[in-house]
């Protein structure tokens, strides 16, 4: 039962402490990890934004340079010159020789009616009419045009740049095809890591360059470019599907194209995983330390508590014993008082009868001896009852301490003297071992003598005959110790608990009242001392009386 309570208490202490200690630790760990994750994400986003931005600028510059080049050509050369096939061929050859990274695939001149009048390049496009093509009217209206990737007459994906020229009243168009591979390469340099991708889509989300992974040029990318706002580089996270991607999109300035950098999150989170593992390890170690400490402390606390409780129990048991003694004492006093008066009457009446039996007339009665013996028996038993009631009163008697100046050695000496005859006839030697200079204390000489008489008498009775008793006095820590040791048979274990209880006796019927030790206990307690014993069956018993040194008042 009690063990269960302590076990539950221990579990409660452990549970509560663990919750209180571990919760903040885990929260802190989580918060730090979360913070780190966010910082990490922000860093990735920054990198991607920068990359998208710079890459889109590069593509922008690429397209603008070529557009500007065509613009310069139409300004510097007239339609007549340009429409001449040889001139155009020479110009194209010069341009490609001077600038090998120009990426011009072909060059063509289209007149106002949409007719391709001259052309240099791998395709035979001379004579095609572009009047119906949507870009034609746009160039005529706006002056320059960069196309999306389209198939056109060549049935091959390409982009064109077209610029309008004006010679007098005559309007015409210089058109060039750009090598798509150059654009592809340019964008591909931004494909970072194992899983990073970079590509361009038009405003409808159609691939304008070849993506690194799934998808083909001119196919729909499935993206909605409107998610990315104009003029700024936007980063977004897309968790649809099994993998999460970061997207960074940057619109080109000179063309409604969106340059997209795509990064798989798991490609970028290696550092993050490492950090998370570290955090989890630290938290786990912390938790382990807390658990061990808590269990250890709970164990100590509960053990201490149990010890205190045990001490308390012992103390309360002692209190109960004292209470029992007091109640018994009160009862004993009451009974003794009530019995003393009738006992006195019986005693006196018996005495009176004895007195009368002395007279001559009674003496001659044939039953005189019987009368004498009966009266003597009455007197004997009155005497026996008297001893009991007087002992009971002695047991309960309140003591006024500091009555006499007491020399303990003298008290012991007198007692031994009283019992010397008794001991000698039983062949028992009494050895004295006195402290030579015990202080004189304020105590009750008669009561102490009663106690000593009791203890030594008990020792003699315990031995029976042939044995030794050692009576010793000593001074220890400002207390006087008196011990009475016999080499009798000892007190059986089962009796040891009860020997101070009133009316408890092991002596033959009528030999003892069972009050001696309880009276002694009561007396010594009231004198501020203690009385204890040790007994080993077969070896003997030692009683120890421990008295405080209370110095007498100066008279």
């Amino acid at each position: 039962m009690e063990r269960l309570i302590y076990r539950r208490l221990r579990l409660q202490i452990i549970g509560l402490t663990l919750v209180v200690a571990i919760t903040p630790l885990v929260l802190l760990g989580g918060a730090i990890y979360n913070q780190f994750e966010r910082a990490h994400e922000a860093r990735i986003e920054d990198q991607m934004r920068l990359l998208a931005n710079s890459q889109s600028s590069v593509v922008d510059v690429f397209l603008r340079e070529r557009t500007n080049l065509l613009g310069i050509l139409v300004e510097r050369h007239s339609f007549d010159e340009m429409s001449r096939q040889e001139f155009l061929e020479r110009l194209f050859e010069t341009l490609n020789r001077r600038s090998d990274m120009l990426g011009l695939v072909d060059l063509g001149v289209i007149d106002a009616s949409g007719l391709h009048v001259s052309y240099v390049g791998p395709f035979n496009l001379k004579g095609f009419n572009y009047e119906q093509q949507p870009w034609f009217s746009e160039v005529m209206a706006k002056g320059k045009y960069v196309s999306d990737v389209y198939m056109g007459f060549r049935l091959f994906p390409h982009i064109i740049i077209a610029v309008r020229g004006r010679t007098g009243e005559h309007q015409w168009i210089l058109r060039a095809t750009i090598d798509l591979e150059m654009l592809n390469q340019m964008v591909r340099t931004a494909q970072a890591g194992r899983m990073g991708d970079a590509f361009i889509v038009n405003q409808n989300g159609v691939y304008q360059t070849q993506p690194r992974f799934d998808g083909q040029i001119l196919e729909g990318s499935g993206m909605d470019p409107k998610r990315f706002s104009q003029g700024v580089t936007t980063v977004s996270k897309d968790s649809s599907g099994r993998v999460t991607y970061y997207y960074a999109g940057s619109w080109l300035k000179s063309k409604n194209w969106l340059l997209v950098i795509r990064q798989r999150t798991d490609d970028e989170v290696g550092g993050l995983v490492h950090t998370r593992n570290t955090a989890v390890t630290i938290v786990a170690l912390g938790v382990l330390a807390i658990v061990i400490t808590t269990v250890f402390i709970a164990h100590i606390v509960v053990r201490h508590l149990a010890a205190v409780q045990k001490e308390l129990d012992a103390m309360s048991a002692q209190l109960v014993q004292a209470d029992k003694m007091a109640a018994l004492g009160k009862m004993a006093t009451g009974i003794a008082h009530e019995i003393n008066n009738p006992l006195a009457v019986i005693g006196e009446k018996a005495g009176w009868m004895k007195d009368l039996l002395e007279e001559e007339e009674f003496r001659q009665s044939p039953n005189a001896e019987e009368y004498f013996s009966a009266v003597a028996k009455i007197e004997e038993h009155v005497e026996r009852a008297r001893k009991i009631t007087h002992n009971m009163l002695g047991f309960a008697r309140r003591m006024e301490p500091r009555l006499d100046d007491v020399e303990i050695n003298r008290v012991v000496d007198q007692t031994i003297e009283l019992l010397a005859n008794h001991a000698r006839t039983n062949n028992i030697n009494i050895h004295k071992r006195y402290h030579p200079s015990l202080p004189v204390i304020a105590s009750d000489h008669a009561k102490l003598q009663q106690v000593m008489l009791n203890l030594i008498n008990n020792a003699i009775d315990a031995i029976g005959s042939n044995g030794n008793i050692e009576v010793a006095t000593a001074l220890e820590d400002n207390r006087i110790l008196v011990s009475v040791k016999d080499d009798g048979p000892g007190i059986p274990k089962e009796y040891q608990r009860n020997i101070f209880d009133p009316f408890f006796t092991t002596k033959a019927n009528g030999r003892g009242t069972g009050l001696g030790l309880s009276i002694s206990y009561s007396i010594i307690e009231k004198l501020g001392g203690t009385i204890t014993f040790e007994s080993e069956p077969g070896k003997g018993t030692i009683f120890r009386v421990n008295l405080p040194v209370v110095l007498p008042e100066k008279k």
Partner: protein
Amino acid sequence: MPTYSVLVVDDEIDFMETLVNRLTRRKMEARGVPSGEAALALLNERTFDVILLDIKMPGAMDGMETLREIRQRHPLAQVILLTGHASLETSMEGMRLGAFDYLLKPVKFEDLLEKIGAALGKSQPVLP
């Protein structure tokens, strides 16, 4: 051999009478009364060498009260308190009030006689 006078004051009539009889038989002039008032009334007429006085008695005057009166009026009479109700307090009080001794009932008759003898020895007036 002078005859000594003894007064027994006890509300337990059986005890008082028997004690008076036994003392008388031992050549003492013994009288018995059942209360403190009766004792004081008798003491107005004469005095006793030894007075055996019970402490707990019914009536207006208990043993202590009676003892106080006796000590004032008959300082030479020796009072032995004889009671079944003993406590250290009452015995000390009795001794303080000038009782010769204090005995607890029932008392061995021989002890009582011895005590009376001792009291008588003490009660011999010291002549100037």
